[in-house]
């Protein structure tokens, strides 16, 4: 017998392997004109896997202290064999992952895949998005270069503006009153231990839920397909959909390699806490729309502080977004949600673009 078959039998005798894998074999993916959007979740997961692998590799050489962080990244870029590749892939994949996560979220929103029974899948997914942005924020500081230092300063300053708990929150994030080596240690701990632990838990929940409920069918097709089951077109997850997903992953790999070789991620200059902030500091693109909005809000709105209003508005928006499945009951609210989502996409796009060109 072929060795692979013998291994399978050995596992099956002990773990009931076939029984465990059975649901996977029966898993199907609906086919319709929006089916391509189904790849996004898998691509995001794949990019997360890339991050874990390259992140672990970087951990072998990175040193998380203010005195050595910058030099260790420089060392990785110049002395370690293929270190330039690992580091550039890590930085680029981080951005790509957040981008695909946003696309995945918006596609789920517009296709209303969060409808009953998948509300908790949506909630876990939104939490995953927040965690991913937390990864981005904490990881950005780790090279300890000028841009990262000041972006962190500005970002934690904004956190400090939250009413009542702002200052405590800021001190917690910074490990002190100012951004120092203590902040770097803390962000490193968040980035390699705390956030990975949380995200592993949430990914497991998210995937389990997706498995449990199967892939959702877009709302307009659901009644049609329920009435006429023979109209339903679907594809086996294994191996058909998976092969296509593999294609998407390889495209992502090619893109990452090309980016690493043609547009390597820069390092900049080492952070100097005593130097004045360079002009035009802005955060990474996924925070830019919020940052730009806060810049445009006037300092005072009536009696209230403008920045605080901005922060609270975004927090409220985030909360509503998180609870969208529970608010989307009637046809009217559904149209409202779709309209609001389109506005949000346009707003985010416009503000991000504006943030780039603004001084």
């Amino acid at each position, binding site marked *: 017998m072929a060795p692979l078959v013998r291994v399978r039998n050995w596992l099956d005798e002990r773990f009931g392997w076939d029984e465990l894998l059975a649901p996977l074999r029966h898993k199907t993916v609906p086919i319709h004109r929006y089916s391509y959007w189904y790849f996004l979740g898998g691509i995001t997961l794949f990019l997360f896997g890339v991050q874990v692998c390259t992140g672990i590799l970087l951990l072998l050489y990175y040193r998380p202290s203010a*005195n050595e962080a910058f030099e260790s990244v420089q*060392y990785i870029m110049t002395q370690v064999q*293929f270190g330039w590749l690992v580091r550039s892939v890590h930085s680029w994949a981080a951005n790509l992952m957040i981008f695909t996560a946003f696309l995945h979220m918006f596609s789920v929103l517009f296709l209303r895949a969060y409808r009953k029974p998948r509300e908790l899948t949506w909630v876990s997914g939104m939490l995953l998005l927040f965690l991913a942005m937390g990864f981005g924020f904490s990881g950005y500081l780790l090279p300890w270069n000028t841009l990262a230092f000041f972006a962190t300063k500005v970002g934690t300053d904004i956190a400090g503006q939250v009413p009542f708990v702002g200052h405590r929150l800021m001190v917690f994030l910074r490990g002190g009153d100012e951004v120092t080596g*203590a902040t770097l240690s803390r962000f490193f701990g968040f980035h390699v231990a705390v956030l990975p632990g949380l995200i592993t838990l949430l990914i497991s929940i998210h995937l389990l839920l997706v498995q449990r409920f199967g892939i959702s069918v877009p709302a307009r097709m659901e009644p049609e397909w329920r009435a006429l089951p023979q109209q339903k077109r679907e594809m086996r997850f294994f191996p058909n959909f998976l092969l296509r997903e593999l294609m998407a992953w390889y495209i992502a790999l090619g893109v990452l390699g090309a980016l690493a070789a043609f547009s390597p991620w820069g390092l900049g200059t080492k952070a100097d806490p005593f130097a004045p902030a360079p002009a035009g500091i802005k955060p990474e693109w996924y925070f830019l729309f919020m940052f730009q909005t806060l810049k445009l809000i006037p300092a005072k709105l009536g009696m209230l502080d403008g920045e605080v209003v901005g922060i609270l508005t975004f927090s409220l928006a985030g909360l509503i977004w998180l609870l969208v499945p529970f608010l989307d009951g009637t046809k009217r609210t559904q149209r409202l949600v779709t309209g609001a989502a389109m506005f949000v996409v346009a707003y985010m796009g416009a503000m991000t673009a504006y943030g780039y060109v603004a001084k």
Partner: protein
Amino acid sequence: MHSAQPKEEVAAPGRRRFLGVLLGGGLFVSAVSFFYPVLRYLVPPRITDMGGDTVVAGKVGELRPNSGKIFRFGSRPGLLLLGADGQYRALSATCTHLSCTVQYRSDLREVWCACHNGMYDLSGRNLSGPPPRPLEQYDVHVRGDEIIVSRRREA
């Protein structure tokens, strides 16, 4: 028409296996192209010094008393001095006037910049000539037979 079908059905498994092998082979080669850099990455490079705020500037015995040597400190030169009193000192070797590299003059027992005759004492204080500011001082520790120079900076 009728005869073509069985031929197709017979040829199909062969073709499928061929494509399977092709796909497997491709996956293997691409996997190698990913794992090869990773394996090379895992091998520690020969140069272990990362630079940074601490550097090994020299070995004990390398310098005679009343002499100095230039060493690389990050992206700028540093000057390691062994005074006649047997004490090690380290300074930035970038002249504060127009950034020439300074040197130690054992005859004058001062640090001297050859470009415009700037003079500094052993603590880096600018004594005469054009330099407007002293040279940055570094901390020196001797560990075993290595002379460690570190920047005076807060973490």
